[in-house]
């Protein structure tokens, strides 16, 4: 049953030229990181002139990197939302969400390059005070998909709990849990997430009207 949920991310509606430059920048970052990527590299990769890059991103490299980050976040949550919309039980919402997130994090070349070679660029956006923002954003995004089965506040709480698990296994992988493997995630969800659901939730019952 499809569920109508407003996705709290920017709908980017970018022109194709702009999008091509952003994708080119992303390819460069996946290859050699942010520090070594120049606007010349990006222009060459996008097969346009440097002047075009500057015209579309007047703020230069900083502005372009920001646009890359925004685009990638929008893609990430867009993909998650398509996955979550097809879930038919709360268990499915958790399993689909955590697996999709786990795979996208693992397969994202740019992100993985930064984590491995330029952690100083990426980690300050994810840790401590910024982790609060990540938790808030991710749980606000995921909660509506759970509200079919539980009260809004319990949905928020459960979404944050699942986000914490996803972040933990993404940052410190374990030999026992593979976030990219659906069965492994299902076992994790059954063991630790479903028992933590709030009093208002009843996975046995059908969706709330």
């Amino acid at each position, binding site marked *: 049953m499809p569920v109508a949920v407003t996705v709290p991310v920017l709908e980017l509606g970018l022109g194709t030229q702009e999008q091509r430059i952003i994708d080119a920048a992303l390819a460069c970052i996946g290859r050699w990181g942010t520090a070594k990527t120049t606007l010349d590299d990006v222009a060459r990769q996008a097969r346009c002139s440097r002047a075009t890059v500057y015209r579309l991103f007047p703020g230069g490299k900083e502005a372009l990197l920001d646009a890359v980050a925004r685009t990638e976040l929008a893609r990430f949550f867009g993909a998650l939302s398509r996955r979550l919309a097809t879930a038919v039980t709360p268990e499915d919402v958790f399993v689909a969400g955590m697996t999709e997130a786990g795979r996208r994090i693992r397969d994202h070349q740019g992100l993985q390059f930064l984590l491995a070679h330029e*952690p*100083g*660029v990426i*980690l*300050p956006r994810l*840790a*401590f*005070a910024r*982790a*609060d923002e*990540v*938790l*808030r954003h991710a*749980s606000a995004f995921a909660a509506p998909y759970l509200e079919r089965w539980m009260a809004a506040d319990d949905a*928020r*709480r459960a979404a*944050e*709990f699942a986000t*914490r*698990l996803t*972040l*933990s*296994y993404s*940052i*410190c992988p*374990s030999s*026992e849990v593979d976030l990219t493997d659906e069965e492994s995630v299902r076992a994790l969800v059954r*063991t*630790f*997430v*479903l*028992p*933590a659901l*709030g009093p208002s939730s009843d996975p046995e019952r059908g969706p709330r009207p």
Partner: protein
Amino acid sequence: MATSVRERILEATYVCVARYGMGKTTVEDAARQARMSRATLYRYFPGGKDQLLAETVGWEATRFFQRLAAAVAATPDFATMLEEALIFAHRAIEQHEVLQKVLQTEPERLLPLLTVESDRILAFIQSFLEPLVARERLAEGLTAPRAAQHLARMLLSYTAAQGRWDLADRAQVAQIVRQELLAGILRQP
């Protein structure tokens, strides 16, 4: 109490980081603070400044969790121990002046080192929890190492970022522990 040369160097480096920050601290500064020659310091830390900073972060992180372990040693039961651990860790991080200063001014230097350390930190918390977990009646099919690892991850997660909760509020902490942390772990009566 005798402290090893290594320990003296790490402590001196920590003092320098508190004073000058990670970027500006030099091997020279650390040697002067520890009252030894640069040559002696390099004998213990041949990797120079990078190694010195990485090991100082690990050293302080270990001390942090030793203080935490001591703070919760006298609690009457497992759930209360977890509550005390969360409350203590949250407060200790907020009041950790050096950590807060470095997080404000040079997170790009600290966080990569802390992330490298996090495997070791997780293992430390897990090994601390495991014998305690083993005494509890665990949910069907759950082993003590598995439960302890999950708890260690979650404790670290809440400590680093409280999210929607207020970890200074004892009632909320009790709710986290009973409803989230222990939910899948203890056998339901």
